[in-house]
């Protein structure tokens, strides 16, 4: 494994500028390490030719003294982002061989800023899952203690694993209920889901449109800020993207948190919370206290309803969004005697078990006679959850919680297999953030006794990623978490 692949984006940009290595050398080093780490199954498609062509352009721009902001930075792209002329499947069988004829807004922004595409990253099918075991291309191995065969989390499991294993400088992810933050926590890396509307969803395969957001997974807080800068901004092609100026995120790194009010929600410390996680949460609180922040106890009383509301709203939207996969226009087609049979055959063969489960739940809660009892009720509870945050942010500036109630668990874990609900319970600390549309980051805080990373989550006010970056940088500096080398 090469040394230059272990650098952060900011260090890599320095190295490229100072001609310590070229973008081509760097890209070749990544491609070699990707090959050496194929056992992780993090990539579902490697794009070496495109990567080397982009690296060549980057080298020319450096030679001419005209590098762009991300010139020569090799990224992995979650397989849910449409990439022009590069197979994109959301890790579903139903999108077999689908080659988009257009580029998603987020990836086109990154590539226009000079980033390089190393390949497409594994994920839970259509981003439905928290362990990456729901991928048509098989599970991803968490790079921490490979021999123990642990999950990397999900749905952006390939993204988090690839960043942790240094087989991309950073990766794109998407987060509907925790899909950036939970895998980041499981793999000991940093990820941010920005405010709903910060990034365009154009060209990202839709799961639950009112919850989906793109964001970066990277080696540290600063790299997340650099990438989010490039990914953010209004896009006329996504009517829910917000026309707001994008602040200079990196400028908040290194700023003081003196006097900042840190909210600690009582509901996130339920009875039976894993003691190691509770201790690391306290460590985070102590770090911020030492840095001059004020700790404020807050309450988010409707937290207990968040999961149930989420598992009505997300499947409802999914059942509608996934109606487009019918075998007629793209992807897998399984013939039938008539049109209806072709639809049904294609969908029955093309979707995996978890996706089918959610389509059916969504169809049920939206069907005549049940709409009010389930869907409308869940939307009302969603309002209560958002109001909880509105009230809390009258008392504090930012909220600190654990990211997940668990560390990484083994692939094929019995308890998780027993019932889908057991798996869903892992989202308990992350889903509220999506329901309320707020920005949330996970960053590593330390290792469990048996050597697995834990993450802390910072939740900010709507469109206040700045305070998250400022606070996260302080925690990161004091936690001194050691990334995998």
């Amino acid at each position: 494994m090469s040394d230059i692949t272990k650098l952060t984006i900011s260090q890599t940009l320095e190295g490229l500028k100072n001609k310590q290595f070229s973008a081509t050398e760097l890209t070749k080093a990544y491609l070699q390490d990707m090959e050496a780490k194929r056992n992780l199954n993090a990539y579902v498609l490697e794009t070496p030719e495109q990567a080397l062509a982009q690296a060549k352009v980057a080298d020319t721009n450096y030679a001419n003294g005209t590098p762009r902001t991300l010139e020569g930075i090799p990224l992995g792209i979650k397989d849910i982002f449409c990439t022009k002329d590069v197979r994109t499947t959301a890790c579903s069988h139903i999108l077999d061989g689908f080659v988009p004829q257009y580029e998603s807004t987020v990836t086109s922004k990154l590539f226009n800023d000079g980033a390089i595409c190393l390949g497409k990253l594994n994920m839970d099918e259509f981003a439905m899952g928290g362990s990456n075991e729901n991928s048509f291309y098989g599970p991803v191995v968490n790079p921490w203690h490979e021999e123990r065969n642990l999950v990397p989390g999900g749905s952006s499991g390939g993204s988090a694993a690839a960043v942790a294993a240094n087989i991309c400088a950073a990766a794109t992810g998407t987060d509907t209920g925790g899909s950036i933050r939970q895998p980041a926590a499981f793999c000991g890396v940093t990820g941010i889901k920005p405010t709903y509307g910060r990034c365009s969803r154009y060209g990202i395969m839709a799961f639950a449109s009112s919850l989906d957001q793109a964001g970066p997974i990277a080696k540290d807080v600063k790299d997340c800020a650099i990438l989010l800068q490039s990914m953010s901004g209004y896009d006329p092609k996504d009517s829910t993207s917000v026309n707001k100026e994008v602040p200079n995120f990196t400028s908040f790194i290194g700023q003081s948190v003196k006097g900042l009010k840190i909210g600690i929600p009582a509901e996130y410390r339920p009875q039976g919370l894993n003691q190691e996680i509770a201790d690391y949460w306290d460590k985070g609180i102590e770090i911020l206290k030492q840095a001059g922040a004020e700790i404020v106890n807050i309450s988010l009383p409707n937290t207990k309803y968040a999961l149930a509301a989420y598992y009505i709203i997300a499947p409802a939207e999914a059942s509608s969004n996934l109606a487009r996969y019918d075998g007629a226009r793209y992807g897998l087609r399984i013939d039938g005697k008539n049109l209806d049979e072709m639809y049904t055959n294609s969908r029955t063969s093309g979707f995996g078990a978890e996706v089918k489960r959610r389509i059916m739940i969504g169809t049920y809660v939206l069907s005549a006679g049940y709409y009010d009892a389930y869907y409308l009720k869940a939307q009302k509870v969603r309002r209560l959850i958002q109001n909880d945050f509105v009230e809390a942010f009258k008392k504090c500036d930012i909220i600190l919680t654990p990211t997940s109630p668990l560390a990484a668990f083994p692939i094929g874990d019995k308890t998780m297999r027993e019932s889908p609900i057991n798996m869903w319970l892992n989202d308990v600390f992350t889903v509220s953030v999506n329901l309320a549309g707020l920005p949330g980051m996970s960053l590593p805080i330390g290792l469990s006794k048996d050597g697995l990373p834990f993450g802390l989550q910072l939740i900010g006010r709507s469109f206040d990623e700045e305070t998250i970056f400022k606070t996260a940088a302080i925690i990161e500096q004091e936690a001194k978490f050691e990334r995998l080398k």
Partner: protein
Amino acid sequence: MSVDTQTVKKIAFLSHLKIDDDKIDTVGAEFNKIISWVEQLNEANTDNVEPLVSVNDTKLTLRKDEVVEGNQADKILKNAPAAEYDYFVVPKVVE
């Protein structure tokens, strides 16, 4: 509320998904477990609460009704399992 086998079949039909007859009971049992789990929402008092449809209050913007990207039938059909004369081809619908 318990979901019976007939309803599970109907939901599968509406979803354009086929469930084998020998799997209906297992799927139904799991479905019931999930539905009774989400019913914990009934405890929440939502009297006079407006449903939240979108987290952003931004108004949708209007644009001129004109073609911005047209004439790309070849790109649109590029991924079609079957296409002819600039159309998607599907099994015969009209007898």
